[in-house]
């Protein structure tokens, strides 16, 4: 499942930011990828919509790496 979520992140990020995110790993720091905070909110929102889940706002502010986001999505999927 973790590969699927990471792949989804790359696809959505590419759609939102109009550039490739092929080299991204779970360890990548989101701000280092040049993704600004508003684009990040958009990426999260798109993933939530596609997977029909919702990450609480208080969890969003803890996300630093791509892996942080993937883990939160995976936990929600597992709980569903």
């Amino acid at each position, binding site marked *: 499942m973790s590969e699927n979520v990471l792949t989804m992140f790359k696809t959505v990020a590419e759609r939102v930011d109009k550039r490739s995110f092929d080299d991204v790993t779970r360890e990548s720091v989101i701000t280092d990828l040049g993704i600004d905070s508003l684009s*990040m909110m958009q990426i999260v929102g798109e993933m939530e919509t596609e997977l029909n889940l919702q990450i609480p706002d208080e969890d*969003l502010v803890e996300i630093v790496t791509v892996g942080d986001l993937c883990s939160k999505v995976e936990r929600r999927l597992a709980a569903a």
Partner: protein
Amino acid sequence: MAMKMRIEERLYREYMEFFEKAERERRWNIFNDVPWDQINPDAPEELALCAETFASVEMYLPDYVAGGINVVRDYFGRAWFQANWGYEESKHALALGEYLMRSGKRTKDEWFDHQNVVLSKEWELPFSTGRQMTCYGMIQEQATFLIYCKHRDFAKRENDECLRTIYDYIARDEIAHTRFYQSVIKILLEEDREGTLSDLAHVFANFEMPGVGLVPDYDTRILQMRDNGGIDRNIFIRKVYLPLLKYVGIDRHEMLAAQRRELEARRNRESIVETTSSAAE
């Protein structure tokens, strides 16, 4: 016409409530209320540099007032708010400038030279309509409030009670301003939700703090401001974006949909410009 009258009345009531509270609870006097005798002369240069940065941004007041008031002059409540806003903001640059001179961190000549450099450039209105400028004001004042709070703590850590007090007064003004803008946005959302959401998405997508590209050495100053204030990159989402959406009653996903539409519209505009340019060549 009926909608304009209704908005006019509601904005007037909001302004009267804001102004009554400001007159009753929030007025402060630069000569009597600031403890000028509690400046810490040994405070580090970083404290002065940050104060100078804030004073510099506040110094574009003539441009903020001129641009800001004309774009909202068709609604009494908003226009009078801008006039009062100008008075309150005028004290911010004054207090910070006085601090720099009285603390001995800047001589009078240095300060006036700096003023001339700052005012040699002109701030231009970043958005063209009253509603977009209200969105901009709401975001900018919330961000500014947060930054002043962080630097109030910095001044306290450096035992400068005078600067701590100045930042405290300024932060109180800024939060009152953002609350007014929030109330106006709530009204505008009730009257035209889709249009207001679209403007808010547009402003969020193109938002920049007012000193960008104007204040000398801005990038270096901003790094200092972030380091000393403990301001990280996520703070905009945590303390500005999410709280503002919550206060005005917009769900994150509703905002996302508006942002998506805004992005599409921008891409379409860019595509039309590209096509027109290619055709012209």
